[in-house]
């Protein structure tokens, strides 16, 4: 698939959260304020791009040649956990302003289904390293987009007259459902 199509598909049509249902935990939990959502989104883009590159490289240059591709789940999750630690340390020392903005969310990313999920789909769908990076980066962009839109909506409805039993999780889930309906309109794009 050519790069532009891949990017649009990753970010919009096959949106990580609204279509593939990965990364729902942070989507529901870290979307209360736009600033928090933006921070989380930024952190995910950062980690997912690097993770896609590294996991894809390890798969093609180490696991496959050694006929150990069945270890990909274990290896990938360890790589992601380690990566998150390194990124956190690196940001703290080298780019403190970025750490201030994103660093807080980094520990949450290790158990973010989306990062492991995209890393696995990259190799499952047979994407080469370059395509994996594009897919990883733009899937994360789609994640960030969804979480920021949700934060905007949640900020807007914060003082609404929502019925008691729907306050909290249910109304957020309904908003997500409406978002999913809207995003399905983008399905035919590719």
């Amino acid at each position, binding site marked *: 698939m050519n790069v532009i199509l891949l990017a649009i598909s990753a970010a919009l049509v096959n949106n990580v959260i609204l279509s593939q249902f990965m990364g729902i935990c942070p989507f529901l939990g870290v979307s209360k304020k736009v600033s928090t959502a933006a921070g989380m989104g930024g952190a995910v883009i950062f980690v997912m791009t690097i993770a896609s590159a590294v996991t894809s490289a390890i798969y093609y240059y180490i696991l496959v040649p050694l006929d150990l591709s069945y270890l990909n789940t274990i290896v990938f*999750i360890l790589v992601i956990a380690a990566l998150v630690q390194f990124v956190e340390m690196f940001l703290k020392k080298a780019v403190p302003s970025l750490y201030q903005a994103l660093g807080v969310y980094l520990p949450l990313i290790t158990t973010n289904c989306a990062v492991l999920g995209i890393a696995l789909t990259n190799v499952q769908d047979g994407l080469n390293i370059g395509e994996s990076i594009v897919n990883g980066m733009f899937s994360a962009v789609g994640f960030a987009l969804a979480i920021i839109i949700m934060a905007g909506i949640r900020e807007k409805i914060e003082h609404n007259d929502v019925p008691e039993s729907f306050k909290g999780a249910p109304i957020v889930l309904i908003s997500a459902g409406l978002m999913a309906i809207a995003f399905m309109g983008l399905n035919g794009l590719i």
Partner: protein
Amino acid sequence: MGKITERLYNGIVKENPTFVQMLGMCPTLAVTTSAINGLGMGLTTTVILAMSNLMISLLRKFIPDKVRIPAFIVIIASFVTIVQFLLQAYIPSLNASLGLFIPLIVVNCIILGRAEAYASKNPVIPSIFDGIGMGLGFTVGLTTIGIIREILGAGSVFGYSFLDKLNNLIGNNAGDKVNDILSKQGIFKPIGIFVSAPGAFLVLAFIIAFINHRNIKKAKKNGEEAKVCKLADCASCQNVMCQGKERAEEE
């Protein structure tokens, strides 16, 4: 015996992972397109949960605190892959329908959460049953959602298409003209949206609202404040990544 039943009750009812703790949302929304998928995923997760709780509880005195998270992850990931192979070999249909979500069980907050919150601090037998309890609670959640979505979205339940049977019954017994009108009026067509993404969110929303409603009513009767999931306290893997979440909230 008491401990075991207590663990089971806790997992299935009191701290049900799906409806009360709102953990493991990813598979909850993705694989509940049919009742059997929900059931299959739930049982698979239960098996892995029990095994990993057992292993981690066994090794709890040997795993240094500093590396406990990576250790848990290695153990859980290994069991997931083992179960994946077993499914591929002996129940390929389940493996096909659960697809990508089997490896994703690794990052299912429930498993890591129970490892951190219970198995790493408690003896083996209660840990196993804590795993089974939580897993069964998860299974109950998934299967319930799966049944609802399948009925509304495909007119069947566990693969038994009652809608088809109903349509055939009518088709064979009503006159041509009636059949024509019924067909034009889309009588007894399922509501497709419930087996796709938006439907998942909507069904879960209504189920949780219903549970909230019951809790609020009960609390009002007892004159106390109801425990409702406000989504700033519950989700995002509170057990494991508490520190990260707390820092996030201070922002």
